[in-house]
């Protein structure tokens, strides 16, 4: 039985193993991913992002539990940072989701970023696909704790939640570009802490100032994830946003944009792999030498490398 067949038959081990393969040896996973593709497209993908320690994992655990009570199955991808020095990682998001560990309707996978800088792991979109094919109704993607500009999640999720907490700065932060722009829903967690009301007010003010198309104004929810306070409202908010996307066709538009990005990324990688293959017999080193000796500039060298594709050595459109 192939891994794909195992996954469609509900085998958890096959599911876990294909995820590992996608992370480690993606080329070998292609045929299984192809076999799973017709079974995907049903899951709703919810992104959770925010600064370290905001309570993303706890919140995901609570949201998942609520959805389970509503009879939905849930996949969770929790990304933590990989060390740039050793390649190792501590993946600790599951600590906050312990009670879900033995629920057969929940599958949790921790991933290291392994060098990716946008807040996600490179294999994330394929892992989403796999969990989707395995029949999960909702897939939560929890990013690493982010700063201001790690926004890959918005290219990955149907709905993006930005989780904030009191004490991170004044209202000037709310008018900066970056992660605050990508929220479909805001969650102000640790709402029992001093200053939580002010964060809510500042976000509302920021939203008042926004001249982005007014079809959807991100709602701002207050939660205390550790005590389950405010969780039901967030689940309703997620459902409300998905419904909004469906009604005006935006869900399909967003997904189509993702397909475009994904296909182009595959094309890019294949071209790169093939060209490097062609140039691997020492030609590349010679070019490097010439660039180092100022006999050739980097643009000319790149065009020479691309010659097998462009034909004329000048680059540009065919």
């Amino acid at each position, binding site marked *: 039985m192939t891994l794909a067949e195992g996954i469609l038959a509900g085998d*958890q*081990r096959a*599911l*876990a*193993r294909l*995820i*590992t393969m996608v*992370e*480690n*040896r993606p080329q070998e996973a292609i045929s299984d991913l192809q076999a799973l593709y017709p079974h995907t497209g049903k899951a709703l993908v919810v992104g959770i992002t925010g600064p370290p320690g905001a309570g993303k994992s706890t919140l995901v655990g609570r949201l998942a539990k609520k959805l389970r009570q509503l009879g939905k199955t849930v996949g969770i991808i929790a990304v933590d940072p*990989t*060390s740039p020095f*050793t*390649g*190792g*990682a*501590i*993946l*600790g998001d*599951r*600590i906050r989701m*312990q009670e879900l*560990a*033995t629920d057969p309707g929940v*599958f*949790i*996978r*921790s991933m*290291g970023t*392994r060098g990716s800088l946008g807040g996600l792991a490179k294999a994330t979109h394929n892992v989403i696909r796999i969990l989707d094919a395995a029949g999960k109704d909702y897939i939560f993607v929890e990013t690493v704790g982010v700063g201001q500009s790690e926004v890959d999640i918005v290219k990955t999720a149907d709905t993006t939640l930005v989780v904030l907490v009191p004490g991170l700065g004044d209202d000037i932060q709310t008018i900066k570009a970056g992660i605050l722009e990508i929220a479909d829903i805001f969650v102000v967690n640790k709402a029992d802490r001093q200053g939580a009301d002010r964060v809510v007010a500042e976000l509302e003010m920021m939203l008042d100032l926004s001249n982005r198309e007014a079809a959807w104004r991100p709602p701002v929810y207050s939660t205390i994830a550790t005590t389950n306070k405010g969780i039901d409202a967030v689940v309703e908010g997620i459902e409300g946003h998905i419904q909004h996307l469906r009604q005006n066709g935006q869900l399909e538009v967003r997904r189509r944009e993702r397909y475009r990005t994904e296909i182009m990324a595959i094309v890019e990688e294949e071209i790169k792999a093939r060209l490097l293959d062609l140039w691997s017999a020492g030609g590349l080193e010679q070019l490097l030498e010439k660039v180092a000796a100022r006999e050739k500039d980097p643009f000319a060298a790149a065009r020479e490398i691309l010659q097998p594709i462009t034909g004329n050595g000048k680059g540009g459109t065919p």
Partner: protein
Amino acid sequence: MTDRPIRVLIAKPGLDGHDRGAKVLARALRDAGMEVIYTGLRQTPEQIVETGIQEDVDVIGLSILSGAHNHLFPRVMELLREKGAEDILVIGGGIIPEDDIPALKEAGIAEIFTPGTTTQAVIEYIKERAQQS
């Protein structure tokens, strides 16, 4: 095989709250280039096995200081066998009397590391064994 990180689950079964050793080891394995899934205190064998399977780990490291190892370690092995996941390497650490070790190994625990073991010894053991599989 060499450029893939070894994945290790560090789990604390039982009811003791002493996780210093588990954390020190988790950090050391991280610094040795491994991906360490750390799940915190008071895990049931069921939670540990389910987590090990979902995370597709190469190794499960069980840390215990409560004295309940003779019950909890074999239970983990039993559940792994039930799930067809007995290929995952399981090692144990903590305050475990010498006399208990043979029976634990009999139950399928590959190695027991007692107080005084260096983190380097555990790293080398895991690297050697994980590369065989």
